[in-house]
């Protein structure tokens, strides 16, 4: 036996030397327990003064010992927001995570933006998401399989991600079984969803009247005669003078949503399990669709989730876990692009044509080709079937026999996704109606074909991960050492890219604490990215952090006011390897694009083009992050936490196009030229109290991030105020609108506006540089950007004798939106007239008009970025309100039920904003939704 042990020791030594050649053997003494791969060694038996453990990068740490900035939310909180996409439950829940609401289309309703601590770069600010330690998407997980979602914010929290850490990270941890009696949980909820806001456009009479007005403004003949106007006003002729509200015709009042989850968890000391089955269904807003999908389909999303997380203790030394999680998703849609359909509903005027002609054929015409009702009901459907399976195996060996406190673990994870499409589609003929009421004539546009079924467009990805780590954890008297050293590699293959993506990371951390009140941590990563050329591929990213629990010191220990007080700080370097431009931008790229025609048949011959030059010195963005945190509890009733951060990002990619002469004849490569600074805070305050049986809490928080571009290799600009450098990322620029030109005299006495000759009623702009000409050089920084600088939240919660109530408000501010395009620019590109254009400028209304003169022609003067189109983008929503009732246990125990709770809830029930006509966070397309729900949780 002794010989076996020796062999084993040799193998271990070999392993360590092979994997971590640069690390001397002595370091191993400091390597410690849990981490990397989720810790499967049962540490619960050991008493620890710091209470709860929370998830950190590749491991867990005690909350009180934490030296980094991490916000975490538990899935019981997330479940209060019924949503098809998990990220939609996170609005305002995680301080530091800025989010914007996106489309509400079933199955595609992820937030339109997610940023951790704002924008630290003017290039790609995306961040990785890790589920149980491996990169994956969180969106399609069932909320009931999730234990926690955390946002890692500062350098200390992100240290182990190294080259990929600069934009922050989200880590998701799934539920695991606990030793004890089997728990069976059934959660069901169902509800109705409605758009938060639908835009309003004018009816036929106003459209025709205003169209004539616009033509008059343009000096063109009227299109609608007085008789036409009468017919529109009276509605006497619904076929030749229709008045169609496309939203009313295409949409129904509400769409159902339901979600059912059944889970089992439990186990003994040697085996524990968590098993979940989930079903979720969300239907679309389209009216009159066919439930059997014989002819058409609503937008319809079905999802089946399953998960089985098994933990085994194989013996005293080896523990293992086997996790299988996955889902099947079925999506159905009308055979018409959703974004285009919503664009058409906005664009098509009420008098375009009747939905159906007198002979029951679909209405249509040449300009407004695609009758929106026919688009939904007439063209068949498309569908996709997605399958995702994620399997992870982990082994943990307690190497206490070699060195007390040493463990070693390995994990292997496969994650794959496949999508198949199946469509049943046909083209639709529409008929343009003309003539008179007694003698209609029909002009056909397009033909109605037979249904065709196809199974095209397969799509897939798969990911193969490998991880291994050594952990060490020991304490002597007042000293505690722990350490972790790990290796991670990831290969990601995705269809459409014949070259897989690969990453490699060697990372670790060393912790030392004294007397459980002083904590320090050194984290590092030596990580590489294939985006960079050989020799330039790896970077070293160190961070240092420390915490001090002041309330453990003698001078506060006996304070009755301050029960807990901790300060912590961190500083460190992390990177961002997400590049813009072509992949492998270090090499020169040539690509096929378009063609050139020769011959009598104009045959097109494909061409190869030269891409931008390669940059062999390409490197990643480097971010120095600093964080200072303060958290505490006062009077046992008030919890507070405050984080201040500052970030200095350099080596952001920018091109030299602004300085290299264009006679070189090729696009310049991206180079590491840009710099951005970013600063802000997160603040949270919670007050908890009770009056008799009435328990309540009030929670309020806010977080703020503001960045500034310090360098971006900007082109030389004519005026100082034109420079984007010095402003925030995404700072909008535009003209300063002074109002409308009153008359020709006003125009003659104003600086020349050069975009197009102006007429009275056009927007008048300020001449910023005093050159008596208004052009692009008069554009100044106007307002704020699209992403909010501040998010604030307030939660009011109470429970009384089985009843519980919670209201959750979330708001965003220091944000502007800029109205442009079909939904707002009347008659441009044959668009409709929005109601906000009702009070347009005419000589009669010149005193109080709120919209420029209408024009049927392109008008480059009015329809361009200016303060006129800027609106406050501030939004406050009642994100969630929930009223629940928990039945008294004595009633349930007879039925062997341990807990029953029912609830009613509403999501996005109220929205306060300044835009009014559309949802302020998602101006166009399928709107965000609000919902009203009922549900029940039963636990056996």
């Amino acid at each position, binding site marked *: 036996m002794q010989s076996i042990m020796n062999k084993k020791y040799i193998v271990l030594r070999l392993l360590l030397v092979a994997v971590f050649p640069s690390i001397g053997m002595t370091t191993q003494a400091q390597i410690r327990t849990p981490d990397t791969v989720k810790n499967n060694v049962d540490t619960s038996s050991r008493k620890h003064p710091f209470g709860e453990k929370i998830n950190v990068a590749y491991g867990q740490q005690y909350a009180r010992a934490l030296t980094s900035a991490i916000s975490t939310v538990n899935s019981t909180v997330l479940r209060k927001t019924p949503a098809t996409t998990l990220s939609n439950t996170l609005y305002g829940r995680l301080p530091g995570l800025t989010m914007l609401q996106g489309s509400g289309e079933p199955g595609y309703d992820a937030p339109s933006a997610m940023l951790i601590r704002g924008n630290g770069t003017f290039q790609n600010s995306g961040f990785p998401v890790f589920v149980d330690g491996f990169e994956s998407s969180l969106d399609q997980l069932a909320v009931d399989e999730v234990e926690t979602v955390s946002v890692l914010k500062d350098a200390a929290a992100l240290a182990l991600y190294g080259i990929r850490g600069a934009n922050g990270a989200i880590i998701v941890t799934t539920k695991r079984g606990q030793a004890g009696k089997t728990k069976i949980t059934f959660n069901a909820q169902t509800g109705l969803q409605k758009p938060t806001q639908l835009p309003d456009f004018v009816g036929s009479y106003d459209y025709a009247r205003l169209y004539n007005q616009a033509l008059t403004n343009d000096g063109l003949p009227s299109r609608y005669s007085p008789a036409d106007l009468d017919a529109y006003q009276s509605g006497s002729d619904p076929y030749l003078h229709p008045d169609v509200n496309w939203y009313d015709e295409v949409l129904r009042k509400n769409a159902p949503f339901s979600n059912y989850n059944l889970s089992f968890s439990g186990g003994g000391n040697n085996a524990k399990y968590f098993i979940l089955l989930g079903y979720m269904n969300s239907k679309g807003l389209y009216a009159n669709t066919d439930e059997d999908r014989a002819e058409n389909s609503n937008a319809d999303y079905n999802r089946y989730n399953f998960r089985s997380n098994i933990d085994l203790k194989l013996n005293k030394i080896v523990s293992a876990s086997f996790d299988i999680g996955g889902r099947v998703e079925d999506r159905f849609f009308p055979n018409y692009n959703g974004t285009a359909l919503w664009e058409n509903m906005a664009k098509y005027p009420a008098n375009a044509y009747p939905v159906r002609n007198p002979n029951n054929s679909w209405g249509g015409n040449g300009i407004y080709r695609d009758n929106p009702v026919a688009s939904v009901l007439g063209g068949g459907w498309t569908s996709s079937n997605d399958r995702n399976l994620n399997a992870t195996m982990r082994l943990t060996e307690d190497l206490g026999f070699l060195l007390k406190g040493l463990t070693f673990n390995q994990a292997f994870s496969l994650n794959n996704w496949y999508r198949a499409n199946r469509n049943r589609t046909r083209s639709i003929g529409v008929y343009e109606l003309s003539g008179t009421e007694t003698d209609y004539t029909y002009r056909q546009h397009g033909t109605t074909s037979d249904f065709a079924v196809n199974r095209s467009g397969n799509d897939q990805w798969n990911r193969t991960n490998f991880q291994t780590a050594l952990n060490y954890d020991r304490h002597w008297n007042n000293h505690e050492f722990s350490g972790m050293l790990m290796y991670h590699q990831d290969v990601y293959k995705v269809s459409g890219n014949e070259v897989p993506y690969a990453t490699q990371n060697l990372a670790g951390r060393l912790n030392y604490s004294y007397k459980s009140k002083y904590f320090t941590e050194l984290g590092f990563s030596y990580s590489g990215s294939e985006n960079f050329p050989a020799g330039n591929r790896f970077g070293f990213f160190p961070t240092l952090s420390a915490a001090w629990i002041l309330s453990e010191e003698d001078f506060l220990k006996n304070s009755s006011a301050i029960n807990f007080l901790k300060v912590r700080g961190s500083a460190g370097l992390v990177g961002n390897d997400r590049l813009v431009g072509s992949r492998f931008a270090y090499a020169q790229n040539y690509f096929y694009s*378009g063609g050139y025609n020769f011959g009598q048949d104009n045959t097109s011959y494909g061409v190869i083009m030269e891409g931008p030059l390669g940059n062999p010195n390409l490197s990643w963005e480097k971010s120095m992050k600093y964080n200072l945190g303060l958290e505490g509890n006062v009077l046992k009733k008030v919890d507070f936490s405050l984080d201040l951060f500052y970030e200095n990002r350099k080596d952001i990619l920018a091109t030299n196009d602004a300085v290299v002469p264009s006679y070189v004849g090729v696009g310049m490569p991206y180079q590491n030229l840009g710099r951005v600074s970013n600063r802000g805070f997160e603040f949270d305050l919670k007050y908890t109290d009770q009056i008799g049986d009435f328990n309540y809490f009030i929670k309020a928080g806010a977080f703020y991030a503001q960045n500034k571009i310090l360098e971006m290799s900007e082109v030389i600009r004519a005026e100082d105020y034109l420079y984007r450098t010095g402003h925030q990322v995404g700072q909008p620029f535009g003209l300063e609108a002074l109002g409308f030109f009153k008359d020709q005299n006003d125009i003659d006495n104003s600086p020349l506006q050069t975009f197009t000759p102006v007429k009275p009623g056009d927007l008048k702009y300020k001449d910023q540089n005093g050159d008596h000409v208004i052009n692009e050089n008069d554009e100044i920084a106007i307002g704020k950007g699209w992403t909010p600088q501040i998010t604030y939240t307030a939660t009011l919660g109470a429970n009384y004798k089985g009843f519980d109530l919670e209201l959750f408000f979330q708001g965003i501010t220091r944000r502007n939106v800029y109205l442009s395009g079909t939904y707002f620019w009347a008659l441009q590109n044959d668009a409709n007239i929005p109601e906000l254009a009702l009070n347009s400028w005419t000589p009669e209304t010149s005193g109080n008009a709120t919209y420029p003169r209408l024009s049927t022609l392109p008008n480059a003067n009015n329809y361009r970025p200016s303060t006129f189109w800027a609106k406050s983008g501030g939004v406050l929503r009642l994100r969630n309100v929930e009223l629940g009732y928990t039945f008294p246990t004595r009633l349930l125990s007879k039925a062997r039920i341990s807990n029953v709770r029912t609830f009613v809830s509403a999501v996005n029930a109220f929205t306060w904003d300044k835009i009014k006509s559309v949802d302020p966070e998602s101006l166009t397309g399928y709107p965000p939704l609000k919902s009203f729900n009922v549900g029940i949780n039963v636990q056996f």
Partner: protein
Amino acid sequence: MFSFNIKIKEMKSFNIKLYMLSATGLFLLFSSSCKRDFLEKPNGSDVTIDTIFSSKIKAETFLWNVYGTYMPNGFSNDWNIRDGMQAGMLMAASDEGDIYDSWPGPNSHNEGNWGPQGNNEDEFGSHYKGIRNASIFLENVDRVPDISATEKDQMKAEAIFLRALQYAELVKRYGGVPLVDKKLEATGSIKIPRSTYEECVNFIVKSCDEVIASSIPDSYPTGWRGRINRGAALALKSRVLLYAASPLSNGAPYLPDPNNLTGYGSYDERRWVEAAKASKAVLDWAAANGVSLVKSNPDAGVNYESAISQQDNPEIILANKSHGPWGDWSPMFQQFVMPRGIYGGWYGNGVTLQMAQMYQTATGEDQNWPAEGSYQELMQKMQQMEPRFQQSVAYSGSKWNDEIGTISFYKKNDGAWSLYAPLNGVGYMKKFLTRGNWGDEYNQWIIFRLAEFYLNYAEALNEHSAMDPASYDALNMIRERAGMPRITSADPNYNSQEKLRKAIRRERAVELAFEEHRFFDVRRWKIAGDEGVMKGKMWGLNLYEQPNGSMIYKMESFESRVWQDKMYVYPMPQTEIDKGYVTQTPGW
């Protein structure tokens, strides 16, 4: 420091096996992944310069890229400013025509509202993209194993021509420009100052001579129409030398020009001799290679229309066939070019009265246009105009094509406009357009057609050999084809060098109307600043319905245009000046 105080007996052999197994597995996994650089880019189907020039088929694909990079196209396309002008054609920015709407691109030129900050007629840098592509091809094509030496010679000639064509397009706009004849790298010294006008012309001519001397074909099978033949090189040389000999560059500069960017600085008659020789070379080549004026139809008007609109007609030396078909909304093209109300047109191009006055009547007389008159009188005068006018201008009461029929436009009694109205000018430009519809017929943009070289020859010859009979002959070739009477030196209207010069310029305006010649011709002749050319009032004939239902026309000015002499040669974009590598054009 490792403690071995474990009780081995407690370990079951199973555990050890399992552990050994996993540890060994991991070890193997590691050692295999460490063998190669895990992050090295694997071999894929990437296209590199080496793969492009590894086979004929790929090298050709790159040659098509040289063709496709900024080949001239006068039709506006998809909002870009490369083709024609933004949302318009060059004819609407010259005295040939105008667009009624105020927003499309040509207005900026007419209003004088363009310059280094913005010029929506041209993309300076895109020419150099084409030049670079040609250089890349030339520097690498010798590497391709499966192309014969003759074929390489021919393909190189194509690239040399295309590079010279880009320089010609640059020089006629900007004067002297940086001459780049190799692929530049981003590093090292990339400062190349603007060459003189003369150096640029010499470079182009030298390139053309190389192509002419090469094995490039004189013609191609029908499937390869649109490729460069020897005639194209002769044609480019003729055009460039004609421009070089013209008053703008051949004489004292219009503005002080210390670097000779806009011309030679002084006059030399020999430049006209060279221009005439080069033009004659085109005519001789054409005669020997079956390139001829379209004359097959008894109707002169039909011949003229065919010479413009018929695909691959025998008059074409080089055409850009890549514009795509006539059609609906994408890419935006028909909207920009068709008259208001026809096949989706948004405004159409009006033809000015000044332009109409360039045309003669069918009998070769000048038409007299009174300031006001009856509709009948107008129709009569219009119908008297020569065949090319009938083919090029759609006036109120004339037929567009068989499908659309007759169009008319006038201001009604109630102050409203009729269908197809309003427009600026005497009627709509219909040259190029009458075969267009909603269908998928292809159109083309002719870069060189033979008619131009008769006119080039006539002009150059008359300048150095006044009233040379060959000059009259060349001009009469064009007039005869158009069904117009010959002119002679005996005619008192044409009996001096100056009168012949005037006749040649007028013939050129008519024959090559709207084909992107006039815009540049008035510059090289240095007449753009004359009243009524690019400066001052522009005129049209407008019809008004009378209370009694009859109609009268009135001669009315629709706008006054702005010209400054610095506009003869384009300024460099300010963005290029700011980079500090090139100097600005005189006057800007």
